[in-house]
């Protein structure tokens, strides 16, 4: 049984994140990956750079994992978010959940990504095919700008 929250600058290995939540108690193991999407709001995206207030982002990720473990009845939750320069199709975030039952696994995975998007101080700047770059502001535009 393991819980894990980390910020990384290298490529995320999804299988490694899944392995972190392996436990004989778990009848359901669920992996969510967020990836860089090629088109956002009708614009051609060539990459994204992710920046963070790293100390606070780590603190918020730790809190989300602790709250998720307490609320959803499993100790097996791993969240890894990548920072730095990512290309289209690169994995930006991985959430692995191990739970005795699938309902709990799906519920916890969904809860974690929504909490992460709501409160972890991470920002992304999209790079467009025309050479421009812009910080994404999802506030007031539900789901807009999200790669997931």
């Amino acid at each position: 049984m393991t819980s894990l929250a980390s910020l990384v600058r290298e490529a995320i290995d999804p299988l490694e994140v899944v392995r972190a939540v392996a436990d004989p108690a778990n009848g359901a193991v669920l992996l969510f990956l967020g990836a860089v999407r090629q088109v956002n709001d009708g614009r051609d995206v060539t990459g994204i750079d992710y920046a963070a207030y790293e100390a606070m982002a780590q603190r918020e990720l730790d809190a989300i994992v602790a709250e998720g473990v307490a609320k959803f009845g499993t100790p097996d939750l791993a969240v890894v978010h990548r920072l730095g320069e990512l290309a289209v199709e690169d994995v930006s975030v991985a959430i692995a959940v191990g739970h005795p039952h699938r309902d709990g696994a799906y519920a916890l995975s969904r809860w974690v990504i929504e909490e992460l998007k709501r409160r972890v101080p991470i920002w992304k700047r999209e790079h467009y095919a025309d050479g421009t770059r812009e910080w994404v502001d999802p506030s007031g535009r539900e789901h807009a700008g999200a790669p997931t």
Partner: protein
Amino acid sequence: MTITLLLFASYADALGASTLDVELPRESTVGDVISAIRSRHGADRLPPRPLVAVNERYASLESVVEEGDEVALIPPVAGG
């Protein structure tokens, strides 16, 4: 007293800095820290009431700050 103000992403671009030292009288609030930088070039691009953190925790504009506190202005977050 001196307060360290951290700026990130679009706010850092707007102000042209990622860290500012702000001199304020004691008993000042987070709102006072923001007021103190309003005259800086680019500060007009900050919202009237930005999201803030004090010492890595979300806080209100009414929070009182102390010498050495780290205050951060948090642009709309966009992780995931």
